[in-house]
């Protein structure tokens, strides 16, 4: 039995919105093994993205702890958390978040500026990754000159540039057509096959078949498959009414 790579213990994240407290994550205890491909699924507002951002060190929990590769994120200060994001995590966003004024090559190389790598090394590595995602011929194109699928592939190359162990993808196919989405999922599967741990948030349950395990969230809690199906049925019934 392998040692858990990721461990959530008593995790809570509450947001105060006016007089109301929204319990985005409401007590999650969960482990994820290394070299797995996890799909986090659930209806809108179930806390999927919040869980991903907490795991990525982009936000701090209200209570509980998150441990990644033996590192307790609660105990890291802002600088250590930035170092964790730089070295350990690669983010892929639904809306790509490419910098419009930069070429594909510059976008991919961008995170390496904060890793104090020299320009030649940055460009070499970025070109290598663009080749990996099939966009070497688009290296000097700006995002506006690329299709949605190509932009997301550039974003994937950027996520890999610092060679992270953990890939966090937030609805990576959400803004793509079916064909482009399939290509992106294939890329993520390849990354998993190469030994990386992938956590993907998706609202599309069909994509969970590519994952090695599925985490189902409802109202900020992890639920069983049966409970999850029941929650979806309730949601569907409400929508029909």
């Amino acid at each position: 039995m392998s040692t858990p790579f990721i461990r959530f213990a008593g995790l809570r994240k509450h947001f105060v919105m006016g007089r109301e407290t929204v319990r985005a994550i409401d007590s999650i205890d969960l482990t994820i093994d290394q070299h797995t491909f996890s799909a986090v699924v659930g209806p809108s507002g179930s806390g999927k993205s919040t869980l991903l951002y907490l795991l990525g060190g982009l936000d701090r929990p209200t209570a509980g702890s998150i441990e990644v590769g033996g590192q307790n994120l609660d105990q890291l200060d802002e600088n250590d958390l930035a170092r964790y994001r730089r070295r350990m995590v690669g983010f892929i966003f639904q809306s790509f978040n490419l910098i419009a004024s930069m070429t594909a090559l510059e976008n991919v190389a961008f995170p390496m500026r904060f890793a104090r790598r020299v320009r030649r090394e940055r460009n070499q590595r970025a070109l290598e990754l663009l080749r990996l995602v099939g966009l070497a011929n688009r290296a000097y194109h700006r995002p506006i000159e690329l299709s949605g699928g190509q932009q997301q592939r550039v974003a994937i190359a950027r996520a890999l540039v610092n060679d992270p162990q953990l890939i966090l993808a937030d609805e990576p196919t959400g803004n793509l057509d079916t064909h482009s989405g399939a290509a992106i999922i294939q890329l993520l599967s390849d990354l998993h096959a190469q030994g990386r741990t992938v956590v993907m948030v998706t609202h599309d349950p069909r994509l969970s078949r590519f994952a090695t395990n599925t985490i189902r969230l409802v109202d900020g809690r992890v639920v069983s498959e049966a409970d999850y199906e029941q929650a979806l049925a309730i949601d569907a019934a409400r929508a029909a009414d």
Partner: protein
Amino acid sequence: MRVSDLIALILENLGRRKARVALTAVGVVIGTAAVVLLVSLGVGLQRSATQQLGGIGDLTRIDVYPVYGEPGGGGGIVVMEGPGGVPGIQQPINDQTLEQFAAMPGVTAVIARDWVNGGMMLNYGRLEGYGSIMGLGTDNAADLGVTAEAGTLTLSKGTAVIGAMVPQQFFDPRVRPGQEPPPPPDLLGQTLKATLIKYSTDGVEIRKMVQVRVVGVMAESRGEADWSIYMPLSDVTAYNEWFLGKRINRQKDGYANAVVKVGDVDQVLDVADQINELGFQASTPQSFVQGINSFFIVLQVVFGGVGAIALLVAAIGIANTMAMAILERTREIGLMKAVGATNRDVLSVFLGEAAGIGFIGGLGGVALGWSAGQIINVLALAYLAGQSAQSGAPPPTEAVFTPVWLPIFSLVFATLIGVISGLYPALRAATLVPVNALKYE
């Protein structure tokens, strides 16, 4: 993040918002140009005034006089009868005091002087003339800082060195109204007849004739020397003793005046203060120059303040631009943090951009202010040259002067204004919670 990468990123970011950066920098350009131009104008006016004053008097010279009148709180000072029987001198300038002056740090020469204390008429052929006749306690008038236009400045018994304007004081008393007066005589090498005149107690005029040979003519200095006739002190002492009818005791009566020369202009005021503290009256053009300098420093501060107000307005522009940039680039800030930028990295990038706007504006402002100063120089000098010709003063060489430190200071100041203006927006950017920044719409 490497410094080179930081600078490259700042330049890239500024480069992608060229129009906005340029418009914001225009405010800094105007403010910096105002500072450079106005302070340069203040410095130029100060230099011009100092130059004019330098023409009026020797700035390394201190004229020392005894203090006349009742001693005001100067306990221990004895009121004595002065030279020529002038009463009321608090303390005489005698050989001991001359030695005290000479021992002061920075003093290069001390020259005792005395005036002819009676009527003295000069004759050269048919011409009569008068002048300020003064005995010098040195055998070389050059010790006073004057230069020779012709002849020598070395004095010996029965000789004199005259000022450049002295020949113009000679006139023909027999010229009738409407007749052309004779031109000023060339007195160099000529022997003048000097008539000393005094009156006995019963009103009878007594005359004494002496001869004075002019051995040198001093170059025009626009000062006291131009109208003076310098002779050896021993000759003038002999004349004065004849006027008084008794021997002069320099130890008791002292000299009428002493000239103290100081090697370094910067030490003149210190030496003058020390002489004043000894109970004498020291006057120097330098104290006037200092007063003028103080005035011009105030003027420069006021001028600089006017420019600084323009820079302050520009600072608000920079702060506004940076605040807008941070709103527009909130998601980019979120991305920077997501890919590993520290708060310090984000702070450095945005502070650097604000400093960059200040620096670019400062560069433009220095160039504009300096250029405007050169244009004003050309226009003003043409006007001032005409004014100087009328007043006889030397023409100014520049109206606006930009000292080397001013562009450097202005550039640093403009950059600093940028940094200060960008501080709050940059701090806001640096402390954004990454997830909130990424979700910002």
